[in-house]
């Protein structure tokens, strides 16, 4: 497809919506990895769980779309805390290999369980009428759902930025990411902090997964396929960095969309190539510390 102004705007717009999805899911992963250095390969499974929860709530239980999003966030966040207290807590001092194995194991079990109950096929979600159709932007129209996605992303970025940079708890998280031992020795309960961020991070992953059903579809393999993208965002952004995660999500989201628009055949190629190029130059990510 040729690159004209209209295509360019479409790429930016779709890329932005996609980047919001990547950011919402990845931010929790980045902060928990930065806090405890735990490689959590089951993060994609929480996002998938969010997607299926949205399906059940909106389709089977007839709950509205927006309330369902809130319930999904809270439920998956709460359930993830149970996992954190029973299983992840044993990984704090384990080797990286143990973390990889246990969390892959959890992801596989989740994929199998959801395949058993929901089947392996692609699912779609029914949107409320106010989220369908197009919005007239004056010179052209934009799909309403993507506008909604970008708006939710912008609100979350603002809220999270405020919490991270301007509140007491955010300062504690940043201190613990910087230097866990020092933070502990001045009396910050890093374990409690970790449980809290883990819960919120998994809740956000579920929220992102729920929002993404309309954008990228949903099947149990979502947990592994998109996990790779979340890991790329976290690694490229730098562990534990809010700014880095946002920037990485924007770069990868927009370039991936551009690649799919302009070179449909080479589709998924770009996101990996760009992420690898950035990581080769900056192994700790854009805002990471060596």
């Amino acid at each position, binding site marked *: 497809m040729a690159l004209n102004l209209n295509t360019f705007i479409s790429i930016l717009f779709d890329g932005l919506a996609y980047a919001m999805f990547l950011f919402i899911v990845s931010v929790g992963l980045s902060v928990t990895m930065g806090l405890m250095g735990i490689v959590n390969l089951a993060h994609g499974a929480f996002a998938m769980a969010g997607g299926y929860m949205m399906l059940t709530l909106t389709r089977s239980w007839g709950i509205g779309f927006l309330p369902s999003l809130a319930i999904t966030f809270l439920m998956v966040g709460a359930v993830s805390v149970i996992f954190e207290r029973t299983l992840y807590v044993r990984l704090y001092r384990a080797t990286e290999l143990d973390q990889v194995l246990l969390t892959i*194991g959890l992801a596989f079990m989740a994929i*199998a369980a959801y395949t058993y109950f929901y089947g392996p096929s692609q699912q779609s979600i029914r949107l409320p009428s106010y989220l369908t159709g197009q919005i007239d932007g004056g010179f052209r129209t934009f799909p309403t759902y993507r506008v909604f996605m970008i708006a939710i992303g912008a609100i979350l970025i603002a809220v999270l930025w405020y919490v991270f940079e301007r509140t007491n708890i955010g300062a504690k998280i940043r201190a613990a990411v910087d230097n866990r031992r020092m933070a502990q020795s001045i009396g910050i309960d890093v374990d409690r902090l970790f449980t809290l961020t883990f819960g919120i991070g998994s809740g956000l992953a579920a929220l992102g997964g729920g929002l993404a059903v309309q954008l990228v579809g949903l099947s149990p393999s979502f947990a592994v396929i998109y996990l790779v993208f979340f890991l790329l965002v976290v690694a490229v952004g730098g562990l534990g960095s809010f700014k880095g995660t946002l920037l990485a999500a924007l770069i990868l989201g927009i370039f991936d969309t551009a690649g799919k628009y302009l070179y449909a055949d080479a589709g998924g190629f770009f996101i990996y190539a760009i992420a690898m190029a950035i990581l080769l130059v900056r192994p700790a990510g854009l805002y990471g510390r060596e």
Partner: protein
Amino acid sequence: MASTAADPHARARAYLATRHHWHWAEALPWLIAIAAFFAFPDRMTFGTQVLVMVLFALSLDLILGYAGIVTLGQAAFFGLGAYTVGLLSVRAGYGEPITGLFAAAAVAAAVGFLTGLVLLRYRGLTLLVLTLSTTILLQEVGNLFKDITGGYDGIPGITIWPLLGLFDYDLYNHTNYTYCLVVLAVLFYVVRRIVYSSFGEALAGIRENVNRMHAVGSPVRWRLVIVYTISAAIAGVSGALFTQTSAYVTLGVFDFDRSAGVMTILILGGTGRLYGAFAGGVIYMLLEDSLSKLSPEFWQFGIGLVLVLVVLFARRGLFGLAQDLGDRLRRKPA
């Protein structure tokens, strides 16, 4: 004692030689493999698959168990080996099996060397993401050149010439089983020599304490690149055997599930103990065979559960578990 202390080289050689001695129990897996050939003549297709996976897991043991490189991309080399043989047969009309193995090893080793040169500078999450991305990139490249690779539908019409020009392939895969067993034995001998050499000791040193190895002046990065290349070559051979014995290959060989699966095999048996790959490979394949007959979900749930249980309760694999159990039993009478 005084003379050996004066000559640390001689002492080191003597130590390596004692580790190198063959234990009688090491004959067991081979005897079992030969016995299986006569006991289950109609299950040799399955037996061949087991041997291929054991060899693949052995390649991972070399880097993960001995050198401590945590990678999520071992399937890349398996896939390269598998496609080398497949493409040689279909696009070049060349189906000689043994030189095919060498070609597969060379291609996988070349890619292993080049990527290792770059990737092994990194550790932790960065290394995981980079190895994973390399594998997916190869898969994407394969998908981009669908006309050549056949994409996810696979390459049709792979023909492999008779082994040594003598042994043709039978319906029950008796030739294939013997062929794979011989290749496995040869490469096992090579791997065993490597891990019990001074090079192997240096790898263990890197795994246990990389800073100290730097401090004593060990060329850490080169050693890692070399072992990564060797491991890639062996994984390439296992991939080549996979294509040769099934006469079939699709881009699915690059799937994340394959990298994770081979890791599961190794962890199940136990890392860094050579025979872990054998025990893990047999149990994993038997589980797959029986569980996926019930349903694919049971199988996937099964691997997940195995991984979680092993990390929580049997960190050193089944061999480690058996050792602990043996120690406890021995202590009891006293």
